[in-house]
């Protein structure tokens, strides 16, 4: 009987803790699964519209590509600082962990500012969610006006995630002495997920719509 139970736990690996993670961490993983399906659906919807329409390719090297590349750099670096925060927290260096978390949130805020400037450029050109700028409509006759809807929808949804992530990180930074290590790690999971989504948004939205004469 005992050997049977042992065999079972050996196979199962953890008895009552099959994943050897806390329930909060498992919850965050499940949230990330559902959120990645949300973003997948948005990007698939975008790809669907793009494949079934004439689609403008308006992003000039400056400002759009320069800004979006800088944003990618900032977001990737913020992921690195977050890893450093989790590593410091694992080694019980709480004030160091707090410093790294705040650095991550600052980089996240930088991302939002850069993205807002990039939006401003396009809005000034006359792009709205349901209308193309007159110049674009002339350059790409018959182009779908849904370009703006997909662009603002997807990048806006992502920016909202970055924004909530910044708030989440600041709360974690403020409470880092009270929280367990795993809680810091969970906030890291969320932050890396936001970074991961941008790794798909950036090529699909920006790099496939580079302006060429």
């Amino acid at each position, binding site marked *: 009987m005992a050997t049977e139970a042992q065999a079972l736990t050996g196979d199962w690996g953890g008895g009552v803790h099959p994943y*050897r993670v806390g329930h909060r961490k498992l919850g965050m993983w499940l949230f990330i699964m559902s959120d990645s399906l949300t973003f997948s659906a948005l990007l698939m919807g975008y790809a669907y519209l793009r*494949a079934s329409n004439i689609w403008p390719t308006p992003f000039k090297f400056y400002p759009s590509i320069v800004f979006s590349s800088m944003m990618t750099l900032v977001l990737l670096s913020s992921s690195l600082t977050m890893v450093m925060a989790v590593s410091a927290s*694992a080694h019980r260096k709480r004030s160091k962990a707090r410093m790294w978390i705040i650095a991550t949130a600052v980089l996240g805020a930088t991302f939002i500012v850069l993205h807002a400037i990039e939006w401003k450029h396009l809005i000034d050109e006359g792009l709205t969610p349901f209308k193309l700028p007159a110049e674009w409509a002339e350059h790409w006759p018959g182009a779908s006006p849904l370009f703006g809807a997909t662009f603002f929808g997807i990048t806006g949804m992502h920016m909202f995630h970055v924004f909530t992530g910044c708030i989440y990180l600041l709360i974690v930074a403020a409470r880092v002495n009270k929280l367990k290590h795993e809680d810091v790690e969970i906030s890291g999971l969320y932050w*890396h997920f936001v970074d991961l989504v941008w790794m798909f948004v950036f090529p699909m939205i920006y790099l496939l719509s580079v302006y060429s004469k």
Partner: protein
Amino acid sequence: MSAHSEAEEHFAGSNRLFMSVWFWLLLLTGLEVFLGYIQLPVVYMLVILMGASIIKAALIVAYFMHLRFERLNLILTIVPALVICICLLLVFFPDSFRSKHLRYQGPPPAVEKD
């Protein structure tokens, strides 16, 4: 378990490893931006860009999100289900190609009569 966790948490991966992952992510991003500027057919572009993005996503999930160091049970619960669900979304694409041809293309060209 609890006595152990009071001391130092188990944390796999060194700072050097994370720096090199970060470096590779930057390199792949640079490659993607470069690809945007050489004139390739859109299908090749799409395949290469998505390939690079999937590699980047895998690096982030495996090292930054630490999934590589988790128990296999957790990996098998998360990854295959997600991949299958995302692939199922591709089922809409034949319709997207079809609807392009349903669009009104303007009046047919006038046929000349002798």
